[in-house]
């Protein structure tokens, strides 16, 4: 066998890596728009299924618009304009003026100041903020590290160093981008501050919170909410839709799940999902109480219940948020 010197080895490996990076950059440029478009479509299609037919379905970008639509619909139905998921529970944080809110809930204020293009960021972040579980805090800290450049994102830092060691050309930078997209090492957060105005920062397949509204003749005919909770294996993402007054559940569908085949995965079946239609939103949504869980899949059923609760909690906060009480 021929003996090769160090230079040769380094050269060959570098060339292979660079060519590979270039090829993958091209592939990513070609495929990722399709993937992104489809992911957006997916939620829209589910929303169309769950919301009244013939209504004009749009993703909600501005919570105050939705809040006033809800208030309108509720007034028309003779209900109090404020909607609360569970009036008996401790009242959700009282409405605070927008300025104060900025201090308290740091990035909801931050995002709302941004331009309209940021729809997704705005929604996601506000969703995260109001969530009362660990996830919200996690995201919160990550967001902070972005600003302070703390050592939280060790992976990211390491990786970018590694990237530069491959070569100082432009391609090396592409390499980093490419891996960020393909393998999601960075999780999208890192890029947020750098190029926030143009690209939605959250690259997650399923957002933790997203709202769709259905308008019929200018009136709110329904609202669909995407929510997420831990299941047995991974995240369960559901979409739940309500009527315009938010008093009744219209439908529920599981958007994404990785539960055990044949057991937990039965939460996607109509047998399970159809029980939610027509339930009043005042329900506690707990398995065993008002949700009939799937036999043999307690944790998956509980995951769905938790996702439902998240959906309602988030929606409540999303609507309150200071402005609606002032406006009404």
């Amino acid at each position, binding site marked *: 066998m021929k003996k090769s010197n160090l230079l040769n080895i380094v050269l*060959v*490996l570098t060339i*292979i890596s660079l060519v590979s990076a270039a090829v*993958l950059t091209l592939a990513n440029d070609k495929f990722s728009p399709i993937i992104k478009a489809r992911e957006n479509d997916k939620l829209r299609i589910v929303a169309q299924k769950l919301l009244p037919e013939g209504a004009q379905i749009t993703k909600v970008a501005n919570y105050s618009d939705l809040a006033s639509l809800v208030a309108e619909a509720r007034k028309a139905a003779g209900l109090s304009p404020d909607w609360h998921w569970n009036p008996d529970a401790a009242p959700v944080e009282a409405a605070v003026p927008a300025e104060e809110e900025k201090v308290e809930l740091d990035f909801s204020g931050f995002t709302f100041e941004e331009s309209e293009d940021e729809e997704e960021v705005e929604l996601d972040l506000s969703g995260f903020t109001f969530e009362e579980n660990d996830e919200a805090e996690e995201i919160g800290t990550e967001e902070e590290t972005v600003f302070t450049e703390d050592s939280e994102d060790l992976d990211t830092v390491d990786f970018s160093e590694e990237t530069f060691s491959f070569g100082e050309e432009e391609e090396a930078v592409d390499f980093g981008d490419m891996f960020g997209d393909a393998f999601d090492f960075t999780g999208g957060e890192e890029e947020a501050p750098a190029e926030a105005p143009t690209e939605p920062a959250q690259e997650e397949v399923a957002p933790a919170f997203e709202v769709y509204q259905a308008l019929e003749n200018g009136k709110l005919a329904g609202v669909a909410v995407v929510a997420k909770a831990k299941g047995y294996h991974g995240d369960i993402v559901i979409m739940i839709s309500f009527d315009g007054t938010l008093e009744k559940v219209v439908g529920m569908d599981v958007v994404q799940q990785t539960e*055990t*085949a*044949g057991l937990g995965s039965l939460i996607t079946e109509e047998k399970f999902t159809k029980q939610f239609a027509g339930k009043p939103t005042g329900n506690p949504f707990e398995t065993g109480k008002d949700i009939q869980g799937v036999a043999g899949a307690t944790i998956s059923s509980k995951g769905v219940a938790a996702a439902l609760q998240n959906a309602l909690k988030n929606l409540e906060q999303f609507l309150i948020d200071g402005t609606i009480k002032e406006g009404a």
Partner: protein
Amino acid sequence: MAKKSLFKEFVKGLWEEHPNFVMLIGLCPTLAVTTSAMNGLAMGIATTFVIVCSSILISLMRKIIPDEVRLPSYIIIVATFVTIVDLALNAYFPEIYQLLGIFIPLIVVNCIVLGRAEAFASRNGVIASAIDGLGMGFGFTWGLIVLSSIRELLAKGSIFGMTIFGESFKPIQIFGQAPGAFIILGFIVGLVNFININAKRKRELQKISDRSQAA
């Protein structure tokens, strides 16, 4: 002569050196993704694409790649193709992508791919390597289809999504899960061994009888 040996390279992957049932390599995807025939087919095609492409490229570069770093080089080449497959599946076949999930990226470390690169492509010409990869890929694919069809039939009563047993069939859940995969694979390997051993015995008997006739 050359043609005949190329044919041989192709056929050996289909039975004689069948990756799943004879060599018992690449078992991770074999066991994990064969819950339905469609999954098996998709995994087989994806893996075949990666094997053929990486075999061709590695065979082309076999004189350039230094011996000391051949494995990292192979891994980069294989990973490149796998990532392309991963992105393409995600873009055009989202349902299959959802089902195969992590096992697409895991093709990178599939023994069959690296095994062919190391054992064949790094020592043989481009055409022979491509044919060898194709044969191995097809062998892998039919292995997966057989295994996954049996499992789908028992666990869901259907093959390729078409119902075979009808409504009254009570699915046998375990065959849809990992233990079922091991059980079925065990039976198939046993069957393949049985056939091979029988064939060998027959050949030997034939030889003996030929010799005695000649005598």
